[in-house]
């Protein structure tokens, strides 16, 4: 008798759906041991997460606030994934987007509210897009691996923003803190219900809808799918794969850049050190969990928002380190990859006197 792995001939749709759910469950289970080791009852902790993140209007609004940049960045990353392009640089693109929006907010001198927001949006879109576009050009023309380029450019973007907020853009009245001056009211997104929730969330939902239609209904979406599936066939069909690689990385970065716009215009109202606490990396997990679907990104980003908000309260209640939240995210991705393996393969028990 022995246990062997066998490739499944057909992928079961049921399994494709249940595997991500199961992997989150297993991640919760394993994370429970870490909680136990820290002297916290995991059941109480998980209950705390749910109650804090969803149990009150305030909690829910905070969850949506956290979900907003995650949706943008997740959409950006998932778009590139559709074409088998691995954009690991959403974090840097968020910073560049935030920088572009801030530049407009502080120095453009526009007074009209809508014009100001539009200009900030466009600046963030272009900054994020061009930042990723660098990797796009390198990949399209010289086959430079976009994983490395996008990843390393994160550090440049983050340190570049740090330079600005510690240096030339520092608020003279800011008591030497690394942040810019506050934006004028013209440069702020609308907030609702006396909470921190802002219209960026609806922009994110709209963006998801646009991207869904873009991928599933438009000619370009079709082109991206063909290129992602078989680049040689795409070339043979006359598609310009170079342009497509650049365009997709540009768009991917641009959408992540909007997250930067939404953060500075909706939440922080200024540019500062550490504007994104790793949303761009969480976005990779989100895109993977969502199976690259735009609607899936919204759902998973919301779940991640729950974990982030609940995680904050764990820090307050039990003095758990923030690292726990990241460890938990890591566990989810880890088990998800394992689940993907079992979607493709199955374990089989072989009995009797089998040769070999």
């Amino acid at each position: 008798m022995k246990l062997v792995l066998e490739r499944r001939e057909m992928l079961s749709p049921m399994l494709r759906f249940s595997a991500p759910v199961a992997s989150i469950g297993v991640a919760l289970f394993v994370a429970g041991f870490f909680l136990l080791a820290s002297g916290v009852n995991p059941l109480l902790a998980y209950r705390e997460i749910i109650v804090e993140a969803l149990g009150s209007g305030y909690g829910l609004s905070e969850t949506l606030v956290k979900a907003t940049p995650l949706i943008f960045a997740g959409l950006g990353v998932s778009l590139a994934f559709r074409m088998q392009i691995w954009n690991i640089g959403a974090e840097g693109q968020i910073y560049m987007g935030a920088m572009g929006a801030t530049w407009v907010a502080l120095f453009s001198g526009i007074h009209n509210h809508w014009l100001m927001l539009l200009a900030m949006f466009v600046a963030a879109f272009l900054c994020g897009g061009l930042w990723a576009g660098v990797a796009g050009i390198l990949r399209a023309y010289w086959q430079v691996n976009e994983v490395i380029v996008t990843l390393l450019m994160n550090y440049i973007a983050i340190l570049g923003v740090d330079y600005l907020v510690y240096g030339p853009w520092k608020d003279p009245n800011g008591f030497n803190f690394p942040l810019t001056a506050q934006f004028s009211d013209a440069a702020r997104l609308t907030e609702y219900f006396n909470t921190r929730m802002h219209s960026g969330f609806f922009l994110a939902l709209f963006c998801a809808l646009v991207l869904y239609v873009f991928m599933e209904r438009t000619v370009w979406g079709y082109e991206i799918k063909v290129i992602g599936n078989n680049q040689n066939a795409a070339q043979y069909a006359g598609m310009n794969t170079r342009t497509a690689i650049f365009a997709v990385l540009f768009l991917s970065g641009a959408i992540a850049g909007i997250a930067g716009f939404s953060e500075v215009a909706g939440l922080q109202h200024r540019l500062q050190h550490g504007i994104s606490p790793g949303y761009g990396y969480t976005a990779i997990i989100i895109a993977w969990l969502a199976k690259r679907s735009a609607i899936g990104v919204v759902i998973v980003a919301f779940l991640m928002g729950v974990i982030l908000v609940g995680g904050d309260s764990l820090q307050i209640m039990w003095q758990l380190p923030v690292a726990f939240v990241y460890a938990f995210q890591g566990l989810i991705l880890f088990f998800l990859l394992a689940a993907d393996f079992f979607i493709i393969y199955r374990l089989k028990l072989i009995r009797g006197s089998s040769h070999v």
Partner: protein
Amino acid sequence: MTDILQINNIRKTFPGVVALDDVSFTVGRGEIHTLLGENGAGKSTLMNVLTGLYHPDCGNITIAGEAVHFTSPRDSIRCGIGMVHQHFMLVPAHSVFENILLALEKVPNFFNRKVYKEKINQIIAEFDLDLDLDTPVWKLSIGAQQWIELIKLLLRDCQLLILDEPTAVLTPQETERLFSVLNRLKGQGKSIIFISHKMREVMEISDSVTILKKGRSVTTLERGNFDEAKLAALMIGNDKIPEWEKSGQVEDVDVLDIQSLSVQNDRGLADLDDFNLQLKKGEILGIAGVAGNGQKALAEVLTGLKKATHGKIMAGGEDITNSDAKDSYIAGISHVPEDRKAIGIAPDMSVADNLIMKNFKGNAFTNWIFQNKAAIHQNGAAKVKQFDIKAGPAGTPVRYLSGGNIQKVIIARELSEQPNVLVALYPTRGLDIGSAEYVHQVIVDGTKRGMSTILIAEDLDELLKLSDRIAVMFRGKLIGYVDPTNTTRETIGLMMSGVTPEVVA
């Protein structure tokens, strides 16, 4: 002595499809056993079962009298079964040597390259192959790549070799050499399962033939008990092979005029060298030549996938020399590629999506920037019906189709825009008789509405049957034209080896 392989009542189903229904046959030691069957008869599935890729639902396999249960190709390799697949299992970026080493078990972590190289070179010398161990595989012709696959099996000391249409990519001389190798291996007591559609080869090499039809083994015949007619009848049943006449509607107008065209390959060698060709309207122009003499480059440069370094391509008075694939398509040049799985299809997308790949931006399938899904599905359904594509339920990814049906998808797509020129590379390679006839019919039908075809094929019979004229290529040059109604195989054969027609005459 026990038989090397015994297969009993194998059954294998996929969701919704019975691929193998009830297959039994026996291969003796030192026997060359041919498997014959149309596409979709279950040959590939059967081989995948035999090499451990698939697990049969029921039935059993015994190797040398012992029941075996393969769970992975590794198990099958350990039992001494080796296979040369139709689509080679090679790492293109690695050298020949590295690819061969990959196939060997128990290569120590620190090994003496020289010892291994010598071993491999011995085999290369023994069989008189032309192979440089340090060349990366992607630079080799398909014919040369096959030798690598074969060397792997020989080094592994396989007792049962499975060759899936090995001659499809070989020149007649290479085929002969392969057959002598196979016969020598047979003399050493090795057994060979040979898969082919070419009757003449089957007749020449087989000790016994098993015919598969619709997932069942119809019968096994020993040498002496079969002839071409009988095998064909058993394989395709009672379907009559349709006859057709040549198009005969050639107009004396050049649709394509290729003038002293040169194309270089990745090694900087000339694939096409001062090549000239004229294609007339409504003509089927056959290209004969030993594989690797520039046919692929010709197709690629015509369809915009490769750039010419010198010379001109004129289409209807217009210079299209360095247009890209899209422009060529718009100019009315369609292309049925040689390697269908690698460049012909997007395997995870549906048949309907694949059918519009060349024309996805056309008005028929778009509303402004949006795709017209209804039109795409309608087109898909219509083409599936028209070309008799066995595609499964709507939305099935193309990867689940058999080779013949994938080819039909490609041909349906290429012909859907009524091209002026069709460049078809080996369009019937690997197809069963029924599908091949169908493809021929489609090409002949095309000429009736003025389509010109450049038909690149390895099978002389096919070229002689279909072509209005045959152009013979050798080392990237045009050797000359022959009239298929007024020539001999010998003439073409001589020209294929580079002898100019004046000398032949």
